[in-house]
């Protein structure tokens, strides 16, 4: 569908030059909800604007259904965008906004009217068709922007952090709404966000980006459970990093020796040669235990209650830094712990992920 091959983008020149994208390659498939995830300045929006046609690659090519997009202005690309600011035309009504693309394509009037009705029904905005865009709420503007971008039935819909301006509840609602729209229309969605939770909730596949490069591409579960490197592990969810030494490896399972002297097993891909590695452990993949049973030991410095979960912060004996654990607050949860308690940390079988530095 969209083939991005070895794309590099450099802004400016000379000593001011900034490499926004560095040899990025990715293939986005038909009907996919594909998310570009990363911190601000990672190049995700630049990549999106390149697909839309507002930026040109310094090197590399972008293909859409096998056609090279180079040199094609935005108005010749079968691609539409939902802008972060929505960019609704303030001098037009809701219906005129939605019909704008079709009007520019020179479609007949009755066809435009029918599509506008259909799109407004799709985003549940039929009653407000004749309103001016200044007279509707932020969430409604969001829906209009969506309907406007979907109306010309693009091959690809680009969404540039479209939910960032909405409040928490509305954002949750729109996440599901977007997912529904993608299912109903069958259009390929390319979604840009810096919110990892949003990405995990909505995406079929995620590309995690940092500093102009793609660090990992995969389905949400893969990204979360098997982060490819320290950046991804750190950016997606909470992670504890432990230094360890890899002693042996069979298949995907590696045996590691921790500084405490205990050995644990963890998942590892790629290079299996023994040596120093980092072990990444999610807070919910470890549990508190009596000190003598733990793979690690330490002192409980903080107990944070947060409704569904309780977070335990443990100052480790073996290395600097805190280890954070999360336990669901169920009625049958184990004994209560208090600040200052000596505790052990038990790592479940194959709980961590081995990262090479």
């Amino acid at each position, binding site marked *: 569908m969209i083939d991005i091959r070895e794309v590099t983008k450099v802004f400016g020149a000379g000593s001011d030059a900034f490499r926004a994208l560095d040899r990025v390659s990715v293939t986005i498939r038909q009907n996919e909800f594909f998310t570009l995830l990363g911190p601000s300045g990672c190049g995700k929006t630049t990549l999106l604007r390149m697909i839309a046609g507002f930026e040109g690659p310094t090197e590399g090519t972008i293909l859409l259904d096998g056609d090279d997009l180079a040199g094609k202005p935005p*108005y*010749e690309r079968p691609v*539409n965008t939902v802008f972060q600011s929505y960019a609704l035309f*303030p001098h037009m009504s809701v219906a005129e906004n939605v019909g704008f693309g079709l009007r*520019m394509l020179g479609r007949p009037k009755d066809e435009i009217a029918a599509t506008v009705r259909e799109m407004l029904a799709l985003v549940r905005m039929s009653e407000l068709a004749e309103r001016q865009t200044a007279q509707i709420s932020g969430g409604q503007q969001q829906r209009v922007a969506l309907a406007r971008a979907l109306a010309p039935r693009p091959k690809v819909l680009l969404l540039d952090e479209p939910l960032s301006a909405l409040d928490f509840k509305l954002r949750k609602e729109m996440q599901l709404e977007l997912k529904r729209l993608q299912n109903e229309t069958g259009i390929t969605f390319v979604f840009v966000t810096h919110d990892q939770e949003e990405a995990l909730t909505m995406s079929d596949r995620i590309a995690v980006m940092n500093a102009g490069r793609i660090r990992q591409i995969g389905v949400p579960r893969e990204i979360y459970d098997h982060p490819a490197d320290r950046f991804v592990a750190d950016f997606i969810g909470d992670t504890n990093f432990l230094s360890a030494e890899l002693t042996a490896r069979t298949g995907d399972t590696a045996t590691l020796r921790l500084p405490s002297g205990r050995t644990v097993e963890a998942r590892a891909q790629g290079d299996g040669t023994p040596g120093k590695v980092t072990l990444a452990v999610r807070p919910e993949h470890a549990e508190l235990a009596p000190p003598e049973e733990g793979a690690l030991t330490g002192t409980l410095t903080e107990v944070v209650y947060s409704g569904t979960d309780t977070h335990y912060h443990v100052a480790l004996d073996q290395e600097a830094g805190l280890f954070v654990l999360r336990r669901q607050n169920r009625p049958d949860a184990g004994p209560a712990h208090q600040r200052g308690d000596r505790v052990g940390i038990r790592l479940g079988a194959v709980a961590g992920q081995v990262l090479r530095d």
Partner: protein
Amino acid sequence: MDATTRSRALLLAPALFILTVAASGPLLIVFVYSFLTPGDYGGVVWDFSTQAWFNVIAERDFFTEELGWADAHLAVFWRSIKLSLLTALLSFLVGFPTAYFIATRPRRSRDMWMLLIMIPFWTNLLIRTFAIMELIRNEGTINTVLIAMGLVTAPVQMLYTEFSLLVGMTYVYLPLMILPIYASMERFDFRLVEAGYDLYASRWQVLRRIIFPLVKPGVIAGSILVFVPCLGAYVTPRVLGGGKQIMLGNLIELQFGQLRNWPLGAALSLTLLVIVMVALLIYVRAAGGEEARHG
């Protein structure tokens, strides 16, 4: 009268006195004069008459007493309105792209470009008109160059034509078009243009359907700001029209000079004032309507 009102009245007194004596008050006397009878050597005779107002658009033949249109006056009215509209149009055609150009420069350099537009505007209008005259007269730079290049054998007559008035008035009033258009464009959100291109609009369609409608208040303001002073122009047609292509301002002056018909001059002045007020009213209506539409 309480203390605030009294001190306010005292503060306002000097300005209001000057403005009443030397600007607004005399307009009432013009109104009175337009209903009097002309004196033989200028001035007026204090006899009530509506003749002046009648003569603005009509005249009675001296011999046959036949009623007819005041063709000479109507021609001047027509030329004034036509040239003012054309000047506004030409200023728009040049000023819109120029304002657009400035508004799309980097933020730091925009002030510099606008200063470049405003400097000539704040310098003497007579001198700028002279500068144009020296350029287009028969012995002027353009003709000298044309002849030197062998493109023409005799100088092209540009001075003392309607063309010269159009060029001259556009030259002197162009900044009045650029300023309000630029003010509208500077606030314009160019992300809307991106949205337009994304939705298959061509360059022209983006200009016509998105940019133009949103900076229209500036265009209307600019057109009025150019149209109004053109209509009452006196210096530019006097220098560049040379008495052959007179406009309303010159026609009014003639009544107070050579023709010694002060009441008619007064009536013509008030007619000009009414046209200007109507234009301003249309502008206020149009601007008010736009405001209401966009909240």
